[in-house]
């Protein structure tokens, strides 16, 4: 065992322990770490987005246009030149939120973002999560083998009854009620599986932190 000589590792280890102290109870060490984390991450996101997007995707192309004295409008794929003033201006408008009276101007920028993502998500979900998923559910119920045929039938029943559980236009009585009872069974099994996988995820994270403390900090291999 040979503890690390790196000052940074010590800082990281002590902060890790500060966060773990929350398990005992809420305390000043945890609160300190929590606020430090919020501050550093907000600051890091600012720097990151400034250098990797605002400078490279907005400022640089505009700068090049002026330096090379190009015609201001090209509008070919990937070459937008002066058009880039539009996102630049909208981006600045976003900051009017911080100043009460003219805050409504930020909605123009917000509306652009919302519109773009509403369009992208609507088609993305329609193709990837609806059509493709329905298409993949059209499977032969008799495959020639008893085992895989039973699985296919079970899968189809599970899918249809689960869909019927989320059917709100009729009272769930009679056949529909029975189907949705079956559906809830399938849903519960899927939640159970989700529970098991969530447990696995969280424990992995703890293993990772312990590996850091043992190996990187305390130098145990």
């Amino acid at each position, binding site marked *: 065992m040979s503890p690390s000589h790196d000052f940074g590792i010590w800082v990281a280890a002590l902060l890790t322990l500060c966060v773990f102290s*929350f398990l005992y109870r*809420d305390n000043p060490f945890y609160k300190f770490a*929590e606020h430090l984390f*919020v501050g550093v991450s907000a600051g890091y996101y600012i720097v990151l987005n400034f250098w990797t997007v605002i400078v490279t995707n907005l400022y640089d192309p505009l700068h090049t246009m002026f330096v090379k004295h190009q015609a201001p409008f090209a509008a070919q*794929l990937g070459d937008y030149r002066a058009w880039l003033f539009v996102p630049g201006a909208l981006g600045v408008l976003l900051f009017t939120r911080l100043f009460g009276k003219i805050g409504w101007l930020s909605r123009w920028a917000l509306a652009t973002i919302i519109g773009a993502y509403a369009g992208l998500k*609507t*088609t993305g979900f*329609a*193709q990837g999560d*609806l*059509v*493709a998923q*329905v*298409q993949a*559910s*059209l*499977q*032969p*119920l*008799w495959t020639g083998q008893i085992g895989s045929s039973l699985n296919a039938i079970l899968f*189809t029943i599970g*899918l*249809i009854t689960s*869909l*019927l*559980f*989320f*059917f*709100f*236009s*009729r*009272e*769930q009585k009679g056949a529909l009620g029975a189907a949705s009872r079956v559906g809830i069974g399938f*849903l*519960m099994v899927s*939640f*159970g599986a*989700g*529970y098991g996988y*969530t447990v696995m995820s969280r424990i992995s994270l703890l293993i990772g932190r312990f590996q850091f403390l043992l190996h990187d900090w305390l130098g145990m291999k």
Partner: protein
Amino acid sequence: MTLAGFGGPDVARRLPCPALPVAALAFSVLLASGAAAQTLIPPAPASGLTWSDAPNDAGRSVFLTWRASPDDSSSPARVTGYYIERAETPGGPWALVDSTSRGVTTKEDPTVRRDTDYFYRIAAYGPGGRTEALSITGPVRATSQWMNQTRWSVLVFMVVFFGFVLYYMASAQSGRKPFVRRIAGIDAIEEAIGRATELGRPVLYVPGIQDIDQMETVAGLVILENVAKMTARYETPVRVPVSYPIPFTIAEEMVKSGYLHAGKPDQYDPSSVTFISPEQFAFVAAITGIILRDRPGAHIFMGSFYAESLLLAETGFSTGAIQVAGTAQVAQLPFFVVACDYTLIGEELYAASAYLSGEPKLVGGLKGADMLKVCIIAAILIGCVLETLNIHGFTAWMNTQ
């Protein structure tokens, strides 16, 4: 060495004088390899170069296919691969576009400009030199399409769904309210509030930890109005901690209007809705504090929850209060299901808010989805039968790949 008439006349075109480049090539091979040319023989040329415009794009590429040189699989290997060359006029100058290894006879050229004529030729090369095909192909032209042919099924699904949604929205607006069944979870909420009243304890309502852009938060706030109506009727105080500023102001409005609708505006306590913090764990710590200090008789969690669902459900459970939860976050549902007396699963949350508010836009969306579900179930049943009977047309139509 003969040129096969592969493809139509518009595709491959014979050069008026094929002898010239061949002679030039023979000359250059002679110069380059000298005496070694005796043993290293240039490969036989590839032939039959055809092209097709890449479908469903904005004229950004063309596909090229050719027939391999007869020497392609000879041993010792006489062909190393093929060069694809391009020119803007039949006479050149020729520029190398790409190369492939031997055995490969198709290539996409994604470097074309759209609506521009090009001429292509293919050359086989190997240790013994290169041999151009006897013909060039052209004019080749990449063009734009107006409709992506692989996406008709998506378009049909979207049009049908949007049609349903808009129809039911309009019908709800005109007063013919479509039927939506009562969600059992709403009874569970009322029961929980009743229990809290019996115990003489307040009701805790958490509308999720997300901002207003999440639909679940909106649903949670709609349900809050009805919960406030009930607590006003039962004369039981309600506590509503909120994580973001905008949902906070809306939650205040909702509680106020709930008390107003119940005819008890004077009982509204302005301090019942509190703004806490968007920070996940700080928010949880504050709610845990309320749970352990005020000991509410009923906990209602309705909205978007992340990892903190586990902490809320557990702390709430330990006090023995009745708990009702609802979220569409699939990964968090298991924790609510096991620790709460009743859980609204996924769309049930939206359905409950649509049922309670009766708002046309919510009811329309819900009914539209119901109708599409009927269509989907029918499609699955029909599709499965067709697949079992070995008929694949329906499945193929839906394939978007």
